[in-house]
């Protein structure tokens, strides 16, 4: 593992219209470490995760992942970063298997069909692999998204409310997934309102209040 931080934010701000969602935020996270991101609704957690994921970019300041600035190096960084988000990025009229197969093929995976089957079995959707996502509950959609995250085997995993919509077995599975990612050396950022659960899974903490860093631990 190199000395270059996995995430480095330098005075990052993000504006939507007249409102600053994130304001003058700076922090670094070493590679292989995990961070718990907390804050009230609207505190800027999702915007921050989307910026780190290269889904959007700062209005001011700079974000670097593994030493590379995100805006200029998005093409190289995107294969290394996975975002589990409120928006599940799934095509409603494609089946779970088709959605994952598309992701696997875009990643250039070898034997994508076998990999997709294995992952759907793993998240407990093997029997529903050929059902359209439109027929799935919110929890099942989340499981497909988890399978897609596993498919990517990311160096940096960004988990936005990963326990939401999951049943108890799904939550246990999610906790296992976070630990597995950490054991593989991945850097993990976990945003959740379940603070005690999040603390048990992470090493560092960043609390946001109205887009500003409130405290770290």
């Amino acid at each position, binding site marked *: 593992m190199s000395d270059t931080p996995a995430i480095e934010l330098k005075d990052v701000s993000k504006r939507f219209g007249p409102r600053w969602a994130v304001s003058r935020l700076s922090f670094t996270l070493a590679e292989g470490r995990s961070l718990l991101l907390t804050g009230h609704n609207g505190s800027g957690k999702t915007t921050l995760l989307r910026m780190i*994921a*290269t*889904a*959007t*970019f700062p209005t001011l300041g700079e974000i670097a992942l593994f030493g590379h600035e995100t*805006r200029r190096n*998005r*093409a190289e960084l*995107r*294969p290394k*970063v996975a*975002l589990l*988000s409120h*928006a*599940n*990025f*799934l*095509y*409603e*009229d*494609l089946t779970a298997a*088709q959605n994952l197969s*598309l*992701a696997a*093929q*875009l*990643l*250039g*995976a*070898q034997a994508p069909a076998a990999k997709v089957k294995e992952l759907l079995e793993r998240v407990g959707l093997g029997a529903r692999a050929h059902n*359209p996502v439109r027929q799935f509950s919110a929890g099942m959609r989340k499981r497909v998204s988890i399978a897609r995250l596993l498919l990517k*085997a990311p160096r940096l995993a960004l988990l936005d409310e990963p326990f939401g919509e999951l049943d108890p077995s799904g939550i246990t599975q999610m906790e296992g997934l976070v630990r597995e990612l950490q054991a593989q050396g991945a850097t993990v950022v976990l945003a959740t309102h379940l603070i005690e659960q999040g603390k048990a899974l992470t090493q560092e903490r960043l609390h946001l209040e109205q887009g500003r860093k409130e405290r770290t631990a």
Partner: protein
Amino acid sequence: MRPVGLVRGAWLVLKKDWQLEWRTRARLTATVFFSLSTLLLFSFAMGPGIDVLRAHAPGYLWLGILFASILSLGESFRVEAENQSLTGLLLAPVDARSIFLGKVLGNATLLFALGLLLLPVTVALYDVDLTRNPGLLLLALGLGCLGIAAPGTVYSAMSSNARARDVMLPLLLFPVLVPMLLAAVSATKFALMKDVQEQLPSWLKLLTAFDLIYLSVGFLVFPRVVEDD
């Protein structure tokens, strides 16, 4: 794992669009019925004079395709807005230019299929002769559909997040398509009717030039349209 290149990415986006269309047939059904109604209404509006109908048949055909393309292009990016799938594609990752190429080909093939369905209808309603120059007629149809799909894909992506997207798309697209429409109607006319001055090749060249310009501009600007910079 190594992410796919430009052409493979475009192919996977195209294949995904075909899979979506095959599962729902939403776009094809809507565009077919809408364009059939349009052709039928034109024939009623112009009255029973067969010579007038025959003379204007290429114009009616292209207006039918053009109006239906608004439904098709809008739907093409509605599915991408649902669950923010377009962002998912970009992060997957796939190059935005691959998405452009895949979407253009997907939209163009759907419009071309629609055009093929409408050709026999123009025979029934307007009494045109499709056997005079069928190869060049199909070429004009293909080039015209590509000419709608290339700028249409860019404007559809631009308007997909707008509140009044159903109004925005035709307002943005129709003025841009006027030269293409003139060329497509003229090329189709000379493929269906007598071409004593041999004007058809010139119109086909003009259509090809429009397609190349729209494809090049779209290829360059599409990443700016879909990336949240």
